[in-house]
């Protein structure tokens, strides 16, 4: 990592997470700066998703806190949410709406009404499916509808839980390029995945490892 004078975009300070009486992680601290691509690794059940949800402010840690530019996120939720794009396991795509309506809603509610949803859908290879109900799309297309948000956002912090699920090889490569471009622009990407990434080189990728603990 290059030394930076700016405060870290996002930092975890002594996080502890306890689920169902089991300690997932304890006293976990790290800093994430603009330009970082961070992969959270670990076996199933190690608490990867829990960590991402805590970083996004969806879950409250048992102990410790998450800081956004050195302010606790619970104190500056609005600014933090404005800088954050989180995509969880659940895509947040409404199956009763078409792909275009879904994206259009996302664009408008987050203030990007100037973008053309059709153009963005074309970029994620969904041309021709704009008017299909999201419930009728394949798993991969469904996922792409959710990921389409990445192409227009100006959020600095991306937190993505398994973004490559159900995405084909070409799509994964495109996403990886998008992540690099985003990081080069001063943003950061925090993701979990069980797939190997081909384009993002190992020296570019930072890894945070969580282990399954038995206590």
């Amino acid at each position, binding site marked *: 990592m290059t030394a930076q004078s700016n405060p870290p975009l996002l930092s975890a300070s002594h996080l502890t997470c306890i689920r169902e009486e089991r300690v997932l992680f304890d006293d976990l601290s790290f800093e994430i700066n603009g330009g970082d691509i961070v992969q959270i690794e670990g076996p199933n059940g190690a608490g990867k998703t829990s960590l991402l949800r805590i970083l*996004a*402010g*969806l*879950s*409250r840690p048992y102990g410790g806190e998450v800081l956004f530019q050195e302010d606790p996120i619970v104190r500056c939720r*609005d*600014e933090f*949410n*404005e*800088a*954050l794009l*989180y995509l*969880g*396991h*659940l*895509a*947040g*795509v*409404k*199956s*009763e*709406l078409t792909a275009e*309506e879904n994206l259009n*809603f*996302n664009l*408008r*509610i*987050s*203030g*990007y*009404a100037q973008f053309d949803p059709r153009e963005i859908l074309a970029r994620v290879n969904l041309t021709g499916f704009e008017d299909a109900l999201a419930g009728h799309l394949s798993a991969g297309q469904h996922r792409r509808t959710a990921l389409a948000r990445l192409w227009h956002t*100006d959020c600095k912090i991306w937190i993505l839980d398994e973004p490559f699920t159900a995405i084909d090889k070409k799509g994964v490569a495109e996403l990886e390029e998008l992540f690099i471009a985003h990081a080069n622009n001063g943003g950061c990407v925090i993701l979990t995945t069980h797939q190997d990434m081909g384009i993002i080189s190992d020296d570019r990728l930072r890894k945070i490892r969580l282990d399954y603990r038995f206590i």
Partner: protein
Amino acid sequence: MNRGISYTQAFFTLLQRDLKIAVRHRGDIFNPLLFFIIVVTLFPLGIGSEAKILSRVAPGIIWVAALLASMLSLERLFKADFVDGSLEQMLLSPQPLQLLVLSKVLAHWLLTGVPLIIVAPLLAVLLHMDSNAYPALIETLLLGTPVLSLLGAIGVALTVGLRKGGVLLSLLILPLYIPVLIFATGAIEFAATKQPYDGQLAIIAALLVGSLVLAPFAIGASLRVSTN
């Protein structure tokens, strides 16, 4: 970095989406309404068809049926959003959560509360309700059903993450419905005997204002717990 979306825009964007989804899922609108009608129809079968008795208990029957119908329909308020992840996105939106929650409750009330108010006079006829009481019936429903939606949404927000929330929901919110029930039926009874009922209406209106102001905070806090 404000991307320039006003609160009003956000409010109506969400409202519009919810209404669109509901229109494509018509069952959600008609089922509570049918439930309301059927419950009211059962009462004459249970307590006899004598007009005198029916007109005496009509306000209570209609209002209790409205409470139950409102509660049953509320169960789905946040469920679909919870299941498909939209709720998480809503919590992470830069817009104030209270505003978005209010928009969802309004959509729900437009879809289930308003039809209830429209069919209520019809049911009042079936129950031989005194004709003087009709305006009071409509007015109390108009002011009271939004209170039911707002208070009920708190209970729904608390139980949305639970697998078996249904029965629990009734235990949580029916006690909170008691004041609305008492003043609404009181107003209708007063109207039937040609006494002024402005007082009761004013109290229900006060309950509406109070819950409009406070309930969104409770709903928002509850949703944060439920999605944790």
